[in-house]
């Protein structure tokens, strides 16, 4: 079947391809990616269908769903694709587009965890796991989540009460700002 550029909404497909550095159009729907995907049982659209929806110009449905946020980045799909479609990179690209658009995705917890993780880098340089867990529980309203685990991990030295700031913090902040600047000027996606 020949798909017109119009049906495919080729502009969106090209954006995904530019971000991911791989081809969406090369997929011929063999389904190996979904067969090996450990997370497909948690997704409303398994990986091969995500690509098919993109080919059919239905990227909006993909961005609004939760499948992209349930990809574990295990790279099994990319490893096994007979057409060398880097599906794990396509998932990264789709998450970025959904993230930037701050759109109607059905998954909030994974996005919240990602946001807190990245904020931790900007604030501390290294991950501060105690703060990460506590902030996640506060912001997701799951105050009791893993509550029993905290003291066990603290007493074993696996969680630290205090966290020192990294000496490269000004440099890390500069990396974040330079990237924001590049994007403002249209020099990076």
């Amino acid at each position, binding site marked *: 079947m020949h798909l017109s550029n119009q049906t495919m909404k080729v502009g969106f497909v090209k954006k995904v391809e530019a971000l991911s550095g791989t081809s969406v159009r090369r997929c011929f729907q063999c389904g190996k990616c979904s067969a090996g995907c450990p997370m497909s049982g948690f997704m409303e659209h398994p990986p091969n269908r995500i690509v098919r929806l993109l080919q059919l110009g239905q990227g909006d449905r993909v961005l609004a769903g939760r499948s992209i946020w349930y990809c574990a980045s295990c790279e099994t799909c990319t490893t096994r694709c007979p057409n060398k479609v880097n599906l794990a990179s396509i998932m990264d690209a789709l998450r970025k587009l959904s993230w930037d658009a701050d759109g109607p995705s059905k998954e909030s*917890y994974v996005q919240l965890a990602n946001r807190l993780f990245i904020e931790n880098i900007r604030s501390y340089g290294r991950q501060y796991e105690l703060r990460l867990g506590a902030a996640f529980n506060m912001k997701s309203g799951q105050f009791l989540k893993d509550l029993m685990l905290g003291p066990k991990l603290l007493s074993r030295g696996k969680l630290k009460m205090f966290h020192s700031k990294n000496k490269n913090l000004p440099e890390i902040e500069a990396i974040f700002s330079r990237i924001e600047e590049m994007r403002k000027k249209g020099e990076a996606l």
Partner: protein
Amino acid sequence: MTAAKKHIMHYSYYPGCSLHASGREYDISTRALFKALRLGLQEVPDWFCCGATPAHNVDELLSLSLCAKNLSLAEEVDGDLAVACAACFSRLKTTQHHLKKDDVKRRQVETAIDGPAALGKPVKHILEILARDFGLARLEESVKKPLLGLKVACYYGCLLTRPPEVPDLDDCEDPSIMEDILRALGAEQVKWSHRMECCGANFTLSRPGVVLKLSNAILESAQEAGADCIMVACPLCHGNLDIRQQKIEAKNQTSYDTPIFYITQLAALAMGVAADKLGFESVIVDPRPLLTDKQLI
């Protein structure tokens, strides 16, 4: 004695965030093992987070830039870069791989880090250092206390081998590097089905239900194969299989009581390092009863 004579080889070292916190026994045992093998290990000063999965999940340029900056910090220390965490290893290797072949991305990253991307230093996982640089024959010769009678399930997880061109470590569907090392240490290995399956990785924070399901399948498969324990080379895999194990047992009304070892803990033990120097007290599923039972401690 000079440093050069004291050490057979010298490495720079990127431990990563987990090894300074929830995976502290991986760091402790890596240092103990390197010392026992007379391998030099010097931590990269003021390294910071590689961005791990969350950064590349939503912002590839940020992920590449964080790793590129860390790679340039690593240039300040002599020796190939030793990495223990499978996720850090994967991100640093991905950065080298992408930036070597994509000039546009490299230029963007160089703008972001305001300097040249240093892509020349070999990034090596601990497994490769043991099996290839140090060598299996020499490893076997160095064993002081072979791990006789210990039945181990080697668990690779995702990022040590996938996608194959990035880590370039071993076969992406049927690797053997962990089993090869284990054989040199004198332990037994079990054949099992789940050594390459995902443990749920960083869903441990956002969606622990995912981890409970996927890691349960791994523990169940190892138990069915008759393993006494599972050996890992990644702090995330360890966290999911060890820290979450009691919850997995409760949810599935089953009992595993399967100790999870880091490769470096088992290797150091075989090299004669004292058990109290390997962080066994830090883990949730205490491996000491098993090691006592097998007369290994």
